[in-house]
């Protein structure tokens, strides 16, 4: 372990991912494949190359990517590039060609977070998100314990589809937990996210029993045709477990990212 991991964004001045003003660290990699996912670049663990056709100046004569890659990097083969080519994407003047994710050490990430410490006040701090932050188990735990060492308030936003021992290790390092529950029905959950929800619900039960004082909030993205009819049930489920509940309206901000990854986006369809 060299104390690092793959981060695809560090969002400062985040106001809706835990108490106070927070810095959200987005870690790459997720076991779920939710149809509506607004961060498609978060799903795979490795660095990926994106391409935004709208920004590309190739047609107006720019050949900077050709010079950098030794061959034309046109629409057709740009998606063959691997994360190893990430550094070379700097050649692109408009950032039409760019990398999703970069390797960062724990220290690098926490140094950035600490720059915002003055804004955290009594409640704010860092929030690990993803993807599924605990997909990169060692990195996530190292970030949390490192933040603790620096007396920075910690939160994590998990989808819960990971082995319980990881969560059990993380919980004592957390001041606040955001827990995504998309659905209570196993087969529906599987059809829309690609994974069973049993582990998610079992993990939540176990966490609430073992760490009753850890403040928790259950969050549910509202997806019409999938879970819009059962929000009350999920809220009641959260309530029974002593957690707050928040329903997040669907938004389509991720649409362009699908295009940049040359993927189809069908947020309101079951997975095929």
């Amino acid at each position, binding site marked *: 372990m060299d104390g690092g991991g793959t981060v695809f964004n560090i969002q*400062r001045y985040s106001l*809706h991912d835990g108490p106070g*003003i927070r810095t*959200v660290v987005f870690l790459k990699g997720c076991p779920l494949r939710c149809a509506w996912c607004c961060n498609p670049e978060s799903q795979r663990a490795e660095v990926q190359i994106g391409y935004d056709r709208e920004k590309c100046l190739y047609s107006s004569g720019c050949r900077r990517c050709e010079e950098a890659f030794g061959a034309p990097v046109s629409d057709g083969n740009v998606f063959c590039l691997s994360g190893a080519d990430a550094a070379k994407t700097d050649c692109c*003047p408009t950032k039409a060609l760019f990398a999703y994710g970069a390797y960062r050490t724990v220290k690098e990430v926490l140094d950035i977070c600490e720059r915002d410490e003055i804004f955290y006040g009594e409640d704010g701090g860092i929030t690990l998100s993803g993807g599924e932050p605990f997909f990169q188990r060692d990195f996530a735990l190292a970030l949390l314990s490192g933040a603790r060492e620096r007396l920075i308030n910690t939160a994590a936003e998990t989808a819960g589809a990971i082995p319980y021992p990881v969560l059990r290790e993380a919980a004592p390092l957390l001041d606040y937990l955001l827990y995504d529950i998309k659905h209570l029905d196993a087969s529906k959950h599987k059809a829309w996210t690609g994974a069973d929800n049993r582990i998610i619900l079992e993990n939540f039960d176990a966490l609430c029993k073992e760490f009753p004082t850890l403040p928790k909030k259950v969050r549910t993205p509202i997806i019409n045709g999938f879970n819009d009819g059962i929000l009350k049930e999920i809220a009641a489920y959260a309530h029974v477990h002593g*957690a*707050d509940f928040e*329903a*997040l309206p669907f938004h389509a901000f991720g649409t362009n990212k699908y295009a940049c990854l040359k993927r189809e986006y069908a947020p309101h369809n079951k997975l095929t």
Partner: protein
Amino acid sequence: MAKITTRQPAKQAQSSLLDGTVGGAVLSEQEKRLAGMARSVRGGRVSELLKAFKNARPSIDIERGRLFTESFRATEGQPLVLRWAKALYNYAENATVYIDGGQLIVGRAGKPGRYGLLYPELDGDFLDEAIKALPLRKSSPFDISTADAKVVIEEISPYWKGKTFHEALAKALPEDTFRLTYNADAELSSRFIVNETASFRSSIQWVHDYEKPLKIGFSRIREEAVSALNALDEFSPTDNTEKKPFLEAVILTADAIILFAERHAEEAAHLAAAERNTARKKELLEIADICRNVPKNKPRSFREAVQSQWFIQLFSRIEQKTGTIISNGRMDQYLYPFYKADKEKGILTDDSAQELLECVWVCMAQYIDLYLSKAGGAFNEGYAHWEAVTIGGQNPDGADAVNELTYLFLKSKREFPLNYPDLAARIHTRSPKRYLHEVALTVKDGSGFPKLINDEEVVPLLLSKGARFDEAYDYSVSGCAECRMPNRDTYTSPCAYINFAAATEMTLFNGKMIKYGNEIIGLQTGEDFATFEEFLNAYLKQQKNFLKHAFVQQHEIIRLRADHFASPLGSSLHALCMKEKKDIHAPHIEGGIDLGYFEFIGYGTVVDSLSAIKKTVYEDKTLTLSLIKEAISHNFEGYAEVRALLKNAPAYGNDDPYADELGKLIDKEALDFTVKYSAELGVHLDLRLVPFTSNVPFGKVVAASPNGRKAFTPLSDGSSASQGADANGPTAVLLSNFATKNYSYSHRAARLLNLKLSPACVEGDDGTKKLVAFVEAWRSLKLWHLQFNVINRDTLIAAQTDPDAYRNLLVRVAGYSAYFCELSKDLQDDIISRTEHSSI
């Protein structure tokens, strides 16, 4: 215990507020009012008063200009301060007296409706031409009747030709300084490079010690002057030629303001006699009684105190064009004893106190600061005004100063949507939670109030200039971002605004600017630069050259002003002027602290331009300097690739040390200049980043810049990031500000910082709390100033396309709020292009 919430997405498309398709975006309170979803809370008297004039175009009232000119014609050769007092007396005796129907607080210096005054002593030399052009002016227009225009052109203007400060200054400037200051046209219009502001206002923003007349009245101020006059050495030449006329002027001015009030008493009594409505009759008789007592004597009630303050302020506006309107000082402090006493007596309720304050806000809103020169108009768009009311802060002994009246000012701002007065909230480390919370609530309303001023930065800087603790703790916010100690500050000369984006252009083009063709305006610092250090040094030479000319300009301004301006009223309210028996315009007043400044305009533009050149030309070598110059000459048309590379370079406002280190360096170089040379002027000329709206006209002379900015578009404003360059959120904007300041220097003053937040960022109680946390961080970072626009970008765009539906939309501009629809298209675009920070 469990909370259930749903949250709106932070960003959401919203076509128009008014067509009913609000589209789920979170709206500020102001936006809700505009959409008809909420109503203004204040009804009754003040909203009736407001309705009567609000949407009317301002007109020029020539009485002040005419009566002053008449008096000055008759007093030639006499000491200036006495001439000024005589002109004031002539005004008090002969000006029309108005009492508005329904008003409780009386006094105006012009016709009903919104009015602007003429100050021909400033700019009478081109008054005739300006008056002819004025009704056609696009930004901040005024009306004038044909008969009045004739008086201006035939009587007023001819007298002042050859006598104004504007002409004297232009004549005094050395040729090379002149070239950077004025165009060589008949009007001596501004070149917007090294810009003087001394000829379109008579002082830097100023604030009086209102507490003194409220404690003792003008009759006692007059007595003070009489006994001082009697105590003069009858054989002393200076006592006879300098102190004597000064004291006589103070006496005459006290007589003038008392007479002015008494004429209002007569008018009120006269109106009362004819009034049939018994309630109004009673009010008019009260007004008559009040105007016989104040400002002559100490007020007997809160209402009298408010009336007295307004008379003083109004008379001050008549006396001089005091740098974009005289400020109100610490109103929640000096009015408090009257408020408290009346509350204890049971003769005042919070509601009636608020109504009286709002009556005076309405008085202020009808006086429009009229700028005749193109430069003045362009600097102060949207009828700019800075009659700052200061609230909060600390007492002279360092304790927190917040009181019930403080909260009433904030409440009035939330309930009475008017862009008067400008409200400035002082914040310090012991400001009460409730105060911070109510300030945040008021900010959330979305009309731009209050602006925040940080005691933790201001007080130590005032101490470093030689102030005592009690004076520093008791400062008043004055105007845009100045902080003044009314009995200790003695420097009133308006200062230079310097266009450093022009210096960047001159560095690229060897002393030339695209706008001015082959004319060599700046230094010839060469064409080829082998290293970035060479380029940077060339820029710094151009910067230093601008500073040199700004300081030369200032030297002449200081030297000439006492020959052109006097302020017997303002001086009579200043302890040191009364002690030394000198007018406030005297170049030096014993015991005073002279706080001036120079403005660095286009800071973000310059930092980003240097950063882009360093990165693309000298580090990545993705561009050459000649290619950048070529692209700039073509305004980036056909050079999208070059522009994109330049725009991708590290930029100021992102908490990126790459750009911020350059920012700190150019800040330091400017500071080193003033450390070395301001002593020669005998003044603290501090570095500031406060633009008014000058970043728009300054941008109009600068070609495309190396940060990807297009030609002749606005420069970055104040200490804000370049429009759209701040991609890391508002915390990064604040941190970049911190990182680029040179805290080891005392020769620094305000940095104006605009932040635009989407209403979703501050939604609900949670949003209020997070806004407070943000303000607390700003306080800890010891940044001087902060103001917010809490508004959806779509609202601004909708207002631009359908101005009639958005006449009431207030936005924060630069230290003041203005009606969005009264701004020029350029400035509107500038405000729209400021990055809106939303949260994800």
